[in-house]
């Protein structure tokens, strides 16, 4: 391919494990291939709903929102890649690049944003973490104020993780105005 940009050593963030791959951003869309074969991700430019940059420890993360609600995240970009890729993506895909900021303040309280099938936990107005609803195996209401999310855990994704996420629980106080519960619910 003559057009586009090629990047080596790009990680698929999320539950993809920690194996790097090669990423190609070309005028028709994006393609990522895991090193040594295996997983391949291809997104046509017609399916791209938006792109984001986020500065993460040591490197940069590119987020690609797909129109069906999925969101792929790739890490391992250098600072100089950001500006060149931004103009290329905006020009070829016709989307505007947004910049997200990672929250590092260390709080366990904040807001929740639901976008597509992504749940984003925001602390101090910045992004703390995101989980995909596709990875949620089960949700449960515990008591009146606690929402419990259980995640799929399987051997393929957990194989090269020392700690694999199993479940998390959010506490929504009665005073919360974003998610007002149904008082009649038992």
């Amino acid at each position, binding site marked *: 391919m003559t057009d586009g940009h090629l990047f080596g050593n790009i990680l698929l*963030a*999320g*539950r*993809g494990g*920690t194996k790097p791959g090669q990423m190609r951003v070309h005028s028709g869309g994006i393609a990522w291939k895991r090193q040594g074969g295996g997983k391949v991700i291809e997104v046509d430019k017609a399916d791209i709903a938006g792109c984001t940059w986020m*500065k*993460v*420890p*040591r490197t940069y993360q590119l987020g690609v929102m797909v129109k069906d609600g999925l969101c792929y*995240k790739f*890490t391992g970009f250098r600072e100089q890649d950001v500006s060149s890729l931004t103009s290329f993506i905006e020009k070829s895909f016709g989307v505007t690049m947004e910049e997200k900021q*990672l929250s*590092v*303040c*260390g*709080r*366990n*309280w*904040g*807001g*929740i944003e639901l976008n597509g099938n992504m749940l984003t*936990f925001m602390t101090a107005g910045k992004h*703390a*973490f*995101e*989980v*995909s609803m596709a*990875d949620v195996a089960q949700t449960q209401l515990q008591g009146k*104020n*606690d929402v419990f999310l259980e995640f799929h*855990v399987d051997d393929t994704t*957990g194989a*090269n*993780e*020392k*700690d*694999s*996420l*199993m*479940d*998390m*629980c*959010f*506490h*929504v*106080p009665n*005073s*919360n*105005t*974003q*998610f007002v519960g149904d008082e009649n619910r038992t």
Partner: protein
Amino acid sequence: GDGRGGGKTSTDLVAYKNVNDVPFTKETMIYVDQRNESVLIPIHGFMFPLHISTVKSVTSRQDNRTCTTRVIFNVPGTPFNPHDANTQKNQNEIFLKEISFSSKDSRHSSEVVQALKTLRRLVASRESERAERAT
């Protein structure tokens, strides 16, 4: 607690000021950062930093060859919860209350639990000492 007093107080907790201050871990694992009194929690590709003062308790359980580590955080309205200014002040917010991880490396799990407990005790005793001195 207007944040200008110098030093960290529980009312003005900051784990990291800047993204670049966050330590980089190559492996997907819970990492206890003693120096910044924080714990980094891996959530689907994100390393979510939490200040130690948000941690209420840590437990671990081992069955067969899998270790389950559970971290419980301070939330408002829990019985017997010390009246922390953070949980009182932010009533409109949503809280991360609990999170658990499974690991096949039991040694790593017990190390994490030990390190978290020690750090928590250390910071808690320092904070209470400071509060005592202030009165």
